[in-house]
């Protein structure tokens, strides 16, 4: 593979176009400060109390996991339409960022479950066998398998092709997993009565919306930033290898 033939990625020389990085930092600072200080409704009945603030951290993680896996899926398709190694690299890095968010989402979720559902149901601990928790764990396993599959192959083009095929296959099967099964099975998660896999947006306190939406955007931009760093590092490594060869 020759690096000079790669199409130049728009944010390859993006130090000048850093407005979104600044926006991400500003938004997340705002989210962290406001998330811990604004007045939130305290629902004693559900055992939620102040833990509702975790909404600003836990929920955006899952939103972003789905965003990034979708982008990864999109680039897997692009790769199969012309075998451009650039798209393979993008697909992998986006999948990595997606995994990163899913791990964070799982940790924040288990912490939250440990507190809230133990209060609510009496049986508890971080793992409650909640269907959404199970689905999330399966989704994580699927993408870990994706990296194991990649790790086993040396030939670059073949690796790209096979892993892109698996990526597409896995993503298409994951969608029903995340969006349909939790609707069919009883769950401890809020919103399951109305049949919504996440939560009912109408239930959200207007004050909390002012923090929640910036949080989603802020974490998304942060993920994009990570991606940007990763892909640049990947290219530099590649160039370095070509020089030493």
């Amino acid at each position, binding site marked *: 593979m020759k690096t000079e033939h790669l199409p130049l990625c728009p944010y390859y020389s993006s130090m000048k176009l850093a407005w979104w990085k600044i926006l991400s930092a500003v938004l997340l600072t705002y989210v962290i400060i406001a998330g811990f200080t604004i007045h939130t409704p305290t629902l004693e009945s559900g055992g939620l109390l102040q833990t509702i603030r975790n909404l600003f951290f836990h929920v955006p993680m899952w939103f972003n996991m789905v965003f990034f896996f979708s982008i990864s899926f999109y680039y897997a398709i692009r790769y*199969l339409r012309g075998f451009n190694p650039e798209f393979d690299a993008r697909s992998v890095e986006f999948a990595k960022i997606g995994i990163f968010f899913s791990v964070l989402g799982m940790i924040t979720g288990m912490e939250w479950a440990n507190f809230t559902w133990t209060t609510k149901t009496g049986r508890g601990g971080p793992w409650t066998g909640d269907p959404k928790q199970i*689905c999330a764990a*399966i*989704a994580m*396993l*699927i993408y870990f*398998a994706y990296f*194991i*599959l990649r790790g*086993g*192959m040396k030939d670059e083009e*073949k690796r790209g*092709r*096979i892993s*892109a*095929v*698996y990526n*597409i*296959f*896995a993503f*298409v*099967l994951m969608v*029903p*997993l995340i969006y*349909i*099964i939790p609707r*069919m099975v009883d769950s401890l998660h809020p919103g399951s009565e109305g049949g919504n896999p996440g939560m009912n947006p109408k239930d959200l306190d207007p004050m909390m919306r002012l923090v929640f939406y910036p949080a989603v955007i802020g974490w998304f931009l942060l993920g994009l930033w990570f991606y940007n760093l990763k892909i640049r590092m990947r290219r530099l490594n590649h160039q370095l290898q070509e020089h030493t060869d």
Partner: protein
Amino acid sequence: MRKDLLQEWRQKHTLFGVALYVGCTVFAVYLMNGKPEGKVWNALFWVTQLFVSVNAAAKSFLQEPNERFRYYFTLAKPQTFFLAKLLYNLVLLLIMNLISLGLFMLLLGTPLSQTGLFLIISMLGSISLTVVFTFLSAIASRAQQQAAMMAILGFPLVLPMLLILSRLALKAVSPVFQPGWWQMAAMLCGLDIMVVMLGLVLFPFLWQE
């Protein structure tokens, strides 16, 4: 296409191998568990199905040397080839399904209230498992890795299917009221069709050299 099927049919030792595998698995389950009650019976049945289908489907692509594939490819279009493999696997797995269901009833007892319904669901189940695992065995064989790879790739992917299947089958075990049963069944069928379509679209990409 018929040629491929015939070719497969000639390797009968695979068939008996898988049949024996089914028998041994069911017997092992029986020795450990005796005659369990309905819910456990259902769970054990689906776990057995999972392992049987992994093993049977793994044989389809993994057992043949690469050179033979090149030869097949001079004969048929990749889609046709994939469909032929899929059809063969479907027949194989449906037979294995009947054998294991029969053995389960014989050894572990029959806690079923609607045997016919359970039979239909188990058929649907083996179809679902086959379509997913056939495609995955193609991936695993191209990645030049062993059957362990298939389990790693495949188990997370079929878990949702198994979840739906065992819930569907519970209806046949004990007549409890389950809202949305038809919805689940329809979704599973839809998922199967989608997997086959996806396999047909993606399979040629696995083969280009």
